[in-house]
């Protein structure tokens, strides 16, 4: 069976890969490109651990066929820091102890970044609803929400 040849951009870099049609973007990121920062928690779009952006839209990589990324711009957690400078959200998550086991953290960060790009001054409720697709079982969400709100406040300054 012929595999699909895909040319795409991931975290600003040109990437080419071959994939089966049924392979998701998450499968290719993790198993072919070894970008394992995006996590598989459910493979059904219910946990958000594989959150990435595609052409600027927040999506679950498990709900995108890899072949659909032809010509697209994909951003993953691996592209969030700028060289050795953490994104303010990454720093605030550390400052606020907003992670425990850390497996949901990449998804939360990618999702929160997408929120702040659209809404630099979200309310607590807006943060909570925007992040409702990202499950965290360790923190009870409190410190995550605080970290996002604090980042937003700092980035507005």
């Amino acid at each position: 069976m012929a595999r699909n040849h895909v040319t795409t951009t991931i975290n600003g870099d040109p990437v080419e890969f071959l994939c089966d049609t049924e392979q998701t973007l998450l499968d290719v990121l993790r198993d072919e490109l070894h970008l394992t920062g995006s996590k598989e928690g459910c493979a059904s779009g219910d946990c958000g651990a594989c959150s990435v952006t595609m052409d600027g839209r927040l999506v679950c990589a498990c709900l995108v066929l890899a072949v659909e990324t032809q010509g697209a711009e994909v951003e993953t957690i691996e592209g969030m820091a700028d060289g050795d400078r953490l994104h303010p959200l990454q720093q605030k998550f550390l400052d606020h102890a907003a992670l425990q086991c850390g497996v949901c953290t990449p998804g939360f960060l990618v999702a929160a970044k997408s929120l702040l790009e659209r809404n630099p001054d979200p309310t607590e409720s807006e943060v909570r609803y925007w992040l409702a697709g990202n499950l965290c079982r360790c923190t009870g969400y409190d410190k995550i929400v605080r970290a996002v709100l604090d980042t937003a406040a700092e980035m507005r300054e």
Partner: protein
Amino acid sequence: MAAVEKIIENRIDDKTTDSKALKWVGTRAPRPDGVDKVTGRAKFGADTHLPNMLIGKVLRSPHAHARILSIDPSAALALPGVKAVVTRDDFPDQPAGAVQPAGEMIINYRDMTRNIMAREKALYEGHAVAAVAAVSDRVAGQALTLIKVDYEVLPHVIDVDEAMGADAPLIQEDLITEGMDPAPEKPSNIAKRVEFGHGDIETGFSQAQVVIEREFKTRPVHQGYIEPHACLASFSEDGQADLWCSTQGHYVARGHCATLLGMDVSKLRVTSSEIGGGFGGKTVVYLEPVALALSRKACQPVKMVMTRDEVFRASGPACGTSMQVRIGATREGKITAGDATLKFQAGAFAGSPVPAAAMCAFAPYDLEHVRSVGYDVLVNRPKVAAYRAPGAPLGEYAVESVIDELAKALELDPIEFRLLNAVREGVDSSYGPKFGPIGCIQTLEAARDHDHYQTPLGSGQGRGVATGYWFNIGGQTSATLNLSEDGSVALVVGTPDIGGSRASLAMMTAETLGIELDKVRPLVGDTSALGYNMLTGGSRVTFAGGIAVVGAAEDLIRQLCERAALTWDLPLDDVEWIEGEARPANGRAGSEAPMSMAEIAKDMAKSGGPIVGRHSTNAQGAGPSFGTHVVDVDVDRETGRVSVTRYTVVQDAGKAIHPGYVEGQYQGGAVQGIGWALNEEYIYDEKGKIENAGFLDYRVPVCSDVPMIDTVIVEVPNPEHPYGVRGVGETPIVPPLAAISNAVENALGIRFTELPMSPPRVLAAIEQAG
């Protein structure tokens, strides 16, 4: 040596007299694994790849209960790309009655080998029946469809009360109930009866003016860690093997796997990956021995990762229960007797946490007459696994619900009623031993005095309170401090870091050594790097690991002082370790310039060679932790939806090494409890199959479901720990079930005795109440 002991003693005094003297302990220091986790660099169970790696997949029983007549893998093996198939025939049977201590649990390996791969019967839907290793996920999946299994479907039972009935299908045909006198002659699904208590409950009830008795029923819930079970096994032709896996205890996993595969323990090296949540669910093995068996057969590395569906069908869960509780009190509010009967679903194999539940049920109360009886009952569900304070949330849900009703009947404030009966140091616990220093009263008082409890409720809202208890544990723990030539140290521990323990252990190390925190690099070593380590669980790591790292730091200090003494040509007694440097002491004070760790390290080759601080211990004296939760709810009377509007956790930490991660434990436990109370449950069809094996319909709380979770850290130091630590991870999940149920009662005037309080149940109760 004497000098070192003195320093440690001083530090303990510092803690109790002036906590400001501590430089790291009690601060919100950055966590050493943090950057890896916010950048996606951290490697979790499924994140490792090896050259020539195969993918393993499990064929699972579609039946809740079935005899396995035959398994024919020939067609699967003939499929190109399939490298190995394993079934029950690939695991040696384990002797009957062989129980062994393995980590924290007593393990029955005869049961465990049957749980990881069904033998005579498949005992629950999702039970592993065979496994394949193939060149790709797709080929492995295709191969599964080619394995022919001939089943004889048997009647099944999933409800605990039905399973205890005389006519229930027997899950294990030869099971005779333990703990009965006389022992029953006929087999049943009741694995064990336990009883705790003291006094005479009927005498106690005869002294009561108010007696309330209720029956409760709860559904099983899953730990719900976001990372599915995952491992990578690599077996060599010479019988040596490596295993990478997401586990709460890689030493414990090593022991289980070696036993199940019949190999020398030391031939297997296990490396724990970063672990994406466990909550008790990753204290046992599922995929690991299967991946090793496949790798042994295929002579290639085999990676196995559960799907979320498999996680729900074949791992965890925590028990469902059926419980009766009766409590009596005088009109003045003194509890005269408490009696509980707790029936817990163990799943397909014996071993529910009902003993712990029976011990914890009345633990917050000082009772003269108390009895709690527990039954461990087999059903056709996955074998239960530990879930945060295993068993305690359930027994205490029932007891704390009745306590709340009593307070209402006696027209007493629920916290004051609890305070009238609460345990304090020196009181006999309901399960036996006297309590040492504990913080039960302190958490109740702090909850009562908290702004939350003092703030009037909004219209239609309800407020609930509950208190919870967990023992906490110690156990075998090792730590090594390797001094580097520049004076920085590598701290190697053997307990997987599930929520920030590298931070807390490094902080205690730096504190004891008197050095900068960033000079300590903490790592979790593999099973060959250190002596034995019990798993991460039971809230033990900051307690027992703390004792180990402080011991290793003391050992390092002793050697550093020795090198300084040799260098200065002074007796060891005339050298002391202060603020991270060796100084001449006693009459020699000031005779030599102090030597820092870096200076001693620079010349360690010349002064005697490498310096390694070590400590191995079987830590004893874990400090129990009490917590009191206050919660406000709003109930939509037309749809039955319960919304949590405010939540406060008050808990005794002993000493919070890193307050941020202590608060995180409190908050996370509370929100898991909210899920347990309101929406989480396994739903089965009439054939005994799970209908909601996914995060869509197994409803863990999402971010928009919950409010901020306030926390109050009470610190009643544990005298058995150098910094006073008790352990905090378990207790936060104990009070929420009752606290929320009590709040709903307060809002609606309806007592719920069933969990979860999902909207259909709540609306039905509202309509019934008219």
